[in-house]
């Protein structure tokens, strides 16, 4: 029953998407009513199909293969719900849901003056939606029926049972889909005839802002999950799936900044249009890399080459259509408003170039193993050392410029005046950096650079706030402050991480950084759907005061037959004590891995600050857009 209804709703949404596509192609006012029916029909049918699947998960309806394979009656309710998008098929349904919600937002922007423009956006948006619905219905149908009656499900991978991971995919999809809106707007702008003056950048910016903010927080949550759940002591692994979200983020960052140029000075319009197209195409290519099984990664989605071919064909259609349009139509956007290198435009341009170069570097690193395999049939893997020695050195100058860019004037700025303006910040950052290093006495060139750059960004933005320099945007200041905090966190946790692996018996102790750990006891505990062995460690500081207890666990989930390690982490603003229990027994002792990760919590604080800044900017952009109506 659920299966029939679900399939019906899926095909119904396809019908509405197709009708939206054809009606919006003929964009005259009489059709408005029909477009509206399609948009609402699409929204309602996709919302219903999504909640139908959610309902099937909540009531454990094992007549659906998807529920059977990914759920279990003993699973906590939160994870039954997040189980909907914790697998390939269900997550495609979420994609479609977010797509249709954004589609509805775009439709709501229409008025008399921009009707042609909006219907062109809706046409492209419908094309994208059709592609995704067909993909879901034909290759990844979440409403497929089980042949036999099933008593209970196969269960859900326990390492995915984590609150951060429950909301991580929806946030990422808002990001990706937001770029789809920017893509549609970009394509529509290319189709505009020259006599129609539509400020397309005002339409594009809120979508890019939303996409970028949500992508930022989505990536951060994924990273938080990896840190707390995987038990590897780190928070970023340059995994292909992480890269697949990081690359659109980099292009999104470039797009966001160059949109400011279009807004203020109508500069670089073709560049912005190209970025808006590429950001979304990269999101699709990322999906392809992850879901086709062409690469292996820690994120194992069910693999099926048919899916890969489908996404590739879809990407080829969208890509060749939009990029061909760009090739033929973007010439009219070239303009010759020149600017000096030492100016706000100059700094944004350099930022753009650097972001794109980083993106290309990451892209190359991600597909390099594939290239090598195709050419020589050797297997290689590209890891952290590659990215550290290529991407990081390009990011460093970008951060340097990021500090100064916002205080420069448009068109041209005076070098001497600027230097006087930033001198206090340079001195302050340098002094603070020296001060920090004198206290901690731990010298490392990359550490010094990182701390200085982090402080440089933070102090510059505080200066902008205090001196009320120019008509700054508060969202920008907040987001940049977030980046500054994040850089401090990243530097601290990578340069000064301490790691110890030791075999311990009861009452043994070990020293890590300024902490002293004592192995107190080990016991068996029983959770809602797992059994675990839990170690108990008492943590003392230098003065022998008990600070906290760490309880790392080794869990066994009987339903899925999974063993997982549950790290126990003591977090404070200066650093995390991170403990993971390994194998062992009473006689020979237990293996314990302990990390001291300085400042790691600032990465998350920074990420949330960035998100906050993005949301504030989003509000301003929406106000600007509203002024058109």
């Amino acid at each position: 029953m659920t299966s029939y209804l679900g399939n019906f709703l899926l095909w119904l949404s396809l019908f509405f998407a197709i009708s939206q596509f054809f009606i919006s192609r003929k964009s005259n006012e009489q059709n408005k009513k029909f477009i509206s029916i399609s948009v609402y029909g699409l929204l309602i049918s996709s919302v219903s199909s999504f909640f139908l699947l959610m309902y099937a998960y909540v009531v454990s309806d094992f007549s659906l293969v998807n529920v059977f394979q990914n759920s279990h009656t003993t699973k906590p309710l939160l994870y039954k719900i997040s189980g909907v998008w914790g697998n390939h098929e269900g997550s495609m349904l979420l994609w479609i849901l977010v797509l249709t919600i954004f589609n509805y937002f775009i439709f709501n922007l229409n008025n008399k003056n921009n009707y042609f423009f909006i219907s062109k956006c809706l046409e492209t948006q419908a094309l994208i939606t059709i592609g995704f619905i067909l993909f879901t219905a034909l290759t990844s149908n979440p409403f497929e029926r089980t042949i036999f009656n099933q008593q209970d499900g196969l269960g859900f991978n326990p390492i995915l049972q984590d609150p951060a991971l429950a909301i991580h995919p929806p946030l990422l999809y808002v990001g990706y889909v937001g770029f789809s809106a920017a893509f549609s707007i970009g394509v529509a702008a290319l189709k505009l005839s020259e006599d129609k003056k539509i400020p397309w950048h005002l339409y594009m910016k809120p979508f890019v802002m939303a996409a970028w903010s949500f992508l930022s927080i989505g990536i951060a949550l994924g990273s938080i999950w990896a840190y707390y759940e995987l038990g590897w002591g780190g928070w970023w692994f340059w995994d292909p799936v992480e890269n697949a979200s990081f690359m659109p983020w980099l292009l999104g960052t470039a797009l966001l900044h160059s949109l400011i140029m279009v807004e203020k000075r109508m500069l670089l319009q073709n560049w912005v249009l190209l970025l808006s197209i590429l950001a979304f195409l990269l999101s699709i290519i990322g999906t392809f890399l992850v879901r086709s099984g062409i690469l292996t990664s820690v994120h194992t989605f069910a693999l099926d080459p048919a899916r890969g071919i489908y996404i590739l064909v879809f990407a080829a259609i969208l890509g060749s259509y939009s990029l061909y349009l760009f090739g033929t139509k973007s010439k009219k956007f070239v303009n010759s408003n020149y600017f000096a290198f030492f100016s706000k435009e100059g700094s944004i341009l350099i930022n753009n170039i650097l972001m794109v170069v980083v993106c290309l570097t990451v892209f190359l690193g991600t597909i390099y193993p594939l290239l090598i395999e195709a050419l020589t049939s050797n297997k290689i893997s590209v890891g952290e050392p590659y990215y550290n020695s290529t991407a990081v050195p390009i990011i460093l100058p970008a951060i340097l410029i990021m500090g100064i860019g916002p205080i420069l004037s448009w068109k041209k700025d005076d070098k001497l005046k600027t230097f006087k303006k930033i001198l206090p910040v340079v001195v302050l950052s340098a002094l603070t950096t020296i001060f920090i290093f004198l206290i901690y006495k731990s010298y490392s060139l990359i550490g010094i650079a990182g701390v200085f750059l982090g402080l440089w960004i933070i102090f510059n933005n505080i200066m902008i706030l205090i001196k009320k320099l120019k008509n700054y945007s508060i969202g920008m200041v907040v987001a940049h402050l977030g980046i500054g905090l994040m850089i401090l966190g990243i530097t601290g946790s990578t340069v000064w991480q301490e790691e110890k692996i030791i075999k311990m018996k009861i009452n043994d102790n070990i020293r890590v950084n300024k902490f002293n750990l004592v192995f107190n006891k080990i016991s068996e505990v029983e959770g809602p759907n797992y059994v675990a062995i839990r170690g108990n460690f008492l943590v003392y500081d230098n003065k022998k005061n008990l600070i906290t207890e760490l309880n790392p666990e080794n869990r066994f989930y009987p339903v899925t037959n999974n063993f997982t390690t549950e790290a126990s982490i003591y977090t404070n603003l200066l650093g995390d004590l991170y403990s993971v229990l390994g194998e062992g027994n009473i006689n020979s002792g237990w293996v314990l891995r302990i990390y001291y990760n300085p400042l790691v919590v600032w990465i998350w604080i920074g990420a949330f600050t960035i998100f906050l800044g993005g949301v504030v900017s989003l509000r301003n952009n929406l106000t600007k857009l509203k002024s058109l109506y």
Partner: protein
Amino acid sequence: MKKHILFFPSIFFILILLIFFYLLTIDRDPSKVPSALLNKNFPKFETESLLKEKKFVASKEFKDRIILVNFFASWCNPCRIEHDFIKRFSNNKKIKVIGINYKDNPKKANEWLKKLGNPYSNIALDKNGRIAIDWGVYGIPETFVVNSDGIIKYRHVGPINKKIYKKINKIINEN
């Protein structure tokens, strides 16, 4: 600005797609790591048998015929998925299917086989995973084809599906 510059992105994009397309169409499996044991003698072992009272001596079992060696356990879900294919192999008169029961409780393994059917002509017990280490197994299910001279000809990591089933049959027919 010269107009053809504006077409660069599309050319670049098409090139990348072509590479991906090529990689998808050639027969490759990203999770496949070539085994160091390929074309070498199988690692010998002696252990208890799950089915018989007599000791399992590999050198006596692996003789005269092509052997399909399948590492499995009752706790392993993917093993259940591939079980139908293992059963199909057991109908093939040219080969002998040997199971290696990996880190399992013999009682549970017996129940499991009773429920799903037993395709194995004999099963070696690998209680502590020692045999699996010698064979370079890093995750079960894993399947090896050993020819009648005791040489390992093929190894597959993960559950057997239709494609792999056909491939293994081809290898069996070649040997």
